[in-house]
């Protein structure tokens, strides 16, 4: 952080030595150097707009931003929010774990074997493109209302994404690396574990991240469609008793949690795994 700031100062100093920049240029260089500034600015604008819309109010069911924040603080303080996340994260984590293990396994198998590809690829392509939300209520009929059903809903959304990305990852492994391994008489097992999986791992991980994004959608659908628990329960319950601030706080919190999770994973992906793939 500090390094970035001082770098900016250096640039400014160098710029000042030469021609004074026009206001447009100055704005542009400012915009380029302070990304975080724009993030904060756009957040501030949104929150202000929200507060004003709540003050008007555009609807009795539209709370002010401050009301929402208060509701959020209240729910965190009395533990309901934390307990809700405890409940929501169970099917999510479980579902994503199952999807990851099964999905990466199936995806790699599909990538390695043409027969398995022929058998499974079309199914997963259809499943990924299909509106799976329609099928979520069916889960209840078989698996009832508990953790199993919700986990299954998460799997239904996350699995196709992970399978297809893993499959793609394996298919896009650098062929000359595979040839290299063969030319050194590597066994098939060595080929898979020493070349294919390491080379595919960045795409595998990216697929996992997309799978987690799909899992969040799945768990929300499950909690809104199957039975309300966790965050889904907070949303429906507070709506049914007209605590709209609490309802909004719950919705905003799940979106924020998913965004932060995904951003964290992306950061991990670009900075820890395979630094050579890092973009400038």
């Amino acid at each position, binding site marked *: 952080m500090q390094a970035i700031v001082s770098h900016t100062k250096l640039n400014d100093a160098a710029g000042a030595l030469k021609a004074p920049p026009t206001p447009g240029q100055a704005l542009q260089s400012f915009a380029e150097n302070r990304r975080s500034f724009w993030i904060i600015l*756009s957040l501030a604008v949104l929150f202000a707009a929200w507060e004003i819309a709540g003050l008007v109010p555009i*609807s009795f069911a539209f709370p002010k931003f401050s009301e929402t924040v208060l509701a959020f603080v209240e729910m965190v303080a009395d533990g309901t929010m934390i307990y809700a996340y405890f409940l929501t994260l169970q099917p999510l984590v479980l579902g994503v774990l199952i999807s990851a293990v099964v999905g990466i396994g199936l995806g790699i198998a599909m990538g390695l074997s043409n027969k398995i590809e022929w058998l499974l690829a079309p199914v997963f392509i259809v499943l990924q493109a299909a509106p799976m939300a329609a099928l979520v209520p*069916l889960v209840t009929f078989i698996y009832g209302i508990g953790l199993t059903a919700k986990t299954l809903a998460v799997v239904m959304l996350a699995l196709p994404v992970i399978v297809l990305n893993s499959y793609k990852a394996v298919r896009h492994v650098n062929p000359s690396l595979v040839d290299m391994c063969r030319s050194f008489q590597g066994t098939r097992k060595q080929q898979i574990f020493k070349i294919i999986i390491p080379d595919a791992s960045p795409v595998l991980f990216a697929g996992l991240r997309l799978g987690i994004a799909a899992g969040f959608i799945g768990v*929300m659908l499950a909690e809104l*469609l199957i039975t309300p628990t966790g965050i*889904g329960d907070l949303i429906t319950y507070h709506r049914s008793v007209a605590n709209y601030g609490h*309802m909004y706080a719950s919705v905003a919190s799940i979106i924020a949690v998913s965004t932060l999770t995904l951003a964290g994973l992306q950061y991990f992906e670009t900075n820890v795994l395979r630094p050579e793939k890092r973009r400038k």
Partner: protein
Amino acid sequence: MTLFGIRIPMMMSLVMWAVLWEVVGRLDLIFLIPPMTSVISAGMDLVQTGSWQNATLITLRSFVFGMALAIVVGVPLGVLMGRVRIIDNIFGLWVNMFVSAPLSALVPILMILFGLGETTVFVTVFLFAVWIIVLDARAGVMQVPPSLIEMGRCYGASRWTIFSKIVLFSALPEILAGIRIGLIRGVKGVVIGQILVSIIGYGELFELYSRSFDMERFWALTLILFAAAMLLSAAVELFEKRIEYYAGAR
């Protein structure tokens, strides 16, 4: 893509799964899976009912309007983000956030802002589809080979000419890819919107059939939707291939 290179074997595998389904259905293991043949015949009946036609009309209307708006807003916004740094900074956060956010959680709120019924569904479609269109259009514009732009400048092209004659054409394959993914997401959006808020269109039918345990019709409707999603994306893909044919190997 490689999958579509071997289209016929792929179809064959789906046929095999359908046969398996038929067998499971005939064994009468669970009421959830009726035989494929009865699903198909229920589908034949279904498409002749007024309520299906009506639901299709409503669903299509929300979908078409939502997609049209997503394209009309998404492509220019993405192009602008790719070209103008400040706009990119302002919108970048939101686009990246919403492209993978659990929008299903947001749907209950949309109703408050956009009212009951079709408008909310239409907005849901828009929200599901627009972000990926923006991101792909942005990526397309940013991927324009710098030498092409320099070439334009060399021959004295104005900024506008470079934009309209080079940048847009060059970004077209990515823009189309974004629209294709957007279409698939839009189909998901229309279903989620209809199921979560207003019980209209296909959402109503799904609710009705699952409540009355009418599994034949339920699956028939599901298959129609799945097929529609696949056909839509295949159609855009076909178009994309033609464009890529011109765009060649970049």
